[in-house]
């Protein structure tokens, strides 16, 4: 099958490569770019572990083919951390509130929550639980994750006031 040229921006860096059409964005990120922070759980759109941002919108990277992303700006979990290293505020909140245990699902949660908070700066608990419903966690349980989102919201609000 004919390969296609793919030009895409990933975490601010322009990338050009040749891809087979059936290669998913998730496999492209992991296998070609070695950005293994994007995890693959179910590979059919259920678990949310592979969530990335495409032009700012959270999507399942296992449900798009890399070739479809020509010209798009992709942000993976690696692209959310501050330039000098360390953790983003959402990541920091997950750590502080025991929002992860084994950590497999965490990148998907962090990316989803980052996108959600960008549009909902002051969510209530129902909105938070609704927003988290597209990501599955099989070990930590969701209480800590909900608390982590609430902590991230509070931290941002305090930063704005302060």
């Amino acid at each position, binding site marked *: 099958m004919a390969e296609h040229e793919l030009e895409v921006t990933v975490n601010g860096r322009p990338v050009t490569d040749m891809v087979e059409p059936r290669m998913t964005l998730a*496999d492209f990120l992991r296998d070609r770019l070695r950005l293994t922070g994007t995890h693959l759980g179910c590979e059919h759109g259920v678990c949310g572990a592979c969530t990335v941002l495409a032009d700012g919108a959270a999507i399942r990277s296992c449900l798009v083919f890399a070739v479809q992303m020509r010209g798009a700006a992709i942000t993976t979990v690696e692209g959310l951390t501050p330039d000098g290293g360390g953790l983003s505020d959402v990541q920091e909140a997950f750590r502080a509130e025991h929002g992860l245990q084994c950590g497999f699902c965490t990148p998907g949660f962090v990316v989803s929550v980052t996108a959600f908070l960008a549009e909902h700066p002051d969510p209530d608990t129902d909105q938070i639980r609704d927003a988290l*419903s597209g990501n599955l966690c099989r070990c930590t349980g969701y209480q800590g994750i909900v608390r982590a989102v609430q902590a991230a919201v509070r931290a941002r609000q305090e930063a704005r006031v302060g």
Partner: protein
Amino acid sequence: MKAAPFEYHAPETLDEALGLLAELGDEAKVLAGGQSLVPVLALRLARFGHLVDLNRIPALRYVRAAGGVTRVGAMTTHATVGDHAEIRSRVPLLAEATPYIGHFQIRNRGTIGGSLSHADPGAEYPAAALALDAGIVLASARGTRTVAAAEFFTGTFTTVAEPDEVLTEVRFTGRPQGCAVLELARRHGDFALAGVACAAEIDSAERIASLRLALFGVASTPVLATAAGQAARGAAAGELDPREVGRAALAGVSCVADLHADAGYRERVAAHLAGQAVRQALQQALQEVRHG
């Protein structure tokens, strides 16, 4: 969990897409948002020699309202449909159905045309289209035709669309005074065990002029409860017994049984939801007639 190999086409105009489909025949499959098709390919439930991706055709993404008709381009995403001011005011049933679809990550990518074409019997938009008596526009190199939603769905995952046709637009005429969407799913975002979309019109004497009830998740296609709707015509909107309408809506429907619910349970849930949806839609219609 990898799709079988295929040739990929990304036309930039509808004509180009229709040309490709005419040429490739049933070797080709149209790729819209991909939120159902990509899993089908990944699980190898189906394989196609060619995928024709509509995502590069900006002319298929629009919402236009004029003269009482709201036209939604097939590649409009669920996220856009759910948030769009024109849709919220003119086709509120569609906007209300949207949050039930998957999760926000899915709604960012999934499209109304894809949902209707995929024709999952548990999906929300097909039932919404039935309840709203939507017109579904199909284009091919041979020409364009508009099919009523009631004629469109032929079975699980099947519609009247031919392999060379692209669903380009969904048309909604008028605005029902009352509407409601209700569903029961085991978890938020799952396909419904049973669900109902309802659109109601009443006259100035507060009698039911039109009641359209569409059930989803219960059978191999979404089901328009035509007899129940007709039986309700002329009844006083404030006096209709929702339980009776619910029972009537399920009469003659043989509900499917699966891992999640047996047929009897599904029927009871659907009848209850149908009654509640009718009650809500009629209350809304009464409110509108009384207070404008």
